[in-house]
């Protein structure tokens, strides 16, 4: 690439063979993770809708399913599994860490004291 880049010039040409192969593979990965997410979501809804599953099992089960589904979203749909995402991982995981502490603290402080 030349030293002067015009960022408003339309990009021309095809991606390289290597990139095309990667994109084809990615398409497959993304479709598989989408099917998995549909399956996980349906399982979560079914375990609550069905009377056969006791709620003592269903509640931890759907929380686990939510955690799996979010991981799929972050690492496949949002590409956090790729190289060069160290800072991205640090930011999201610190955000989640503080969010978990916040949820626990608020639940206990408001919930236990008031109800």
């Amino acid at each position, binding site marked *: 690439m030349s030293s002067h880049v015009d960022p408003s010039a339309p990009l021309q040409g095809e991606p390289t063979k290597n990139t095309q192969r990667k994109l084809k593979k990615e398409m497959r990965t993304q479709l598989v993770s989408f099917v998995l997410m549909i399956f996980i979501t349906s399982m979560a809804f079914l*375990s609550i809708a069905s009377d056969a599953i006791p709620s003592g099992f269903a509640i931890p089960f759907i929380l686990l399913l939510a955690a799996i589904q979010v991981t799929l979203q972050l690492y496949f749909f949002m590409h956090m599994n790729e190289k060069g995402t160290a800072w991205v991982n640090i930011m999201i995981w610190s955000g989640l860490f503080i969010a978990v502490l916040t949820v626990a603290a608020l639940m206990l402080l408001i919930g236990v004291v008031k109800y």
Partner: protein
Amino acid sequence: MAENEAMEQQQTLPPNPEKATLEGRNKYLGFWFFLGGETVLFGSLFGTYLGLRSGVLDGPGPADLFHLDLVFIMTMILLTSSLTSVFAVINMKRGNYKGLLIWMWATVALGVAFLVFEIYEFYEYYHQGLGFSTSAFASAFYTLVGTHGAHVLFGVLWITTLLIRYRKSGLTLTNAPKFYTAVLYWHFIDVVWVFIFTVVYLLGIGG
């Protein structure tokens, strides 16, 4: 002479056009920093909701209001819109600008469908006696789910603006990071919804 050079200047498609310039890389990193902050924002709203959800006073409670079928449809709409935006990014990396625009429009359409369902949902709840200040549960519920809905609305407006502004420009190093960050935002909306349908709706009915 200089004009001729400008005319002939063409950029070839890099493998990751959204990260090909310093500006693009900065946008990408800065946007994730913002998403880390958004996580904490929603964390505090979830914490408040979980603390207050049993405070229903005389108003209707979660089990009286929520219907699984409506929530299931909304979840599927949002999940599918996440997939269409993935397709948009794959088309962008292929250099297929038309494909990018079409899949982004599909994402916008699904986002609007989601909003219509949510407005219908809130309208129904209001007519069943759940006003914003009816109970602690009502306020916490409307704030949490409403903030998410506001994010969906903002995402729809953002992507629509990009689509209209860049309808004819073709894929450039300027607009590739813009579309990419908008898609990241859209996925993040779906991430939040996963927790909402689990914690608010499924636990509200089953727990």
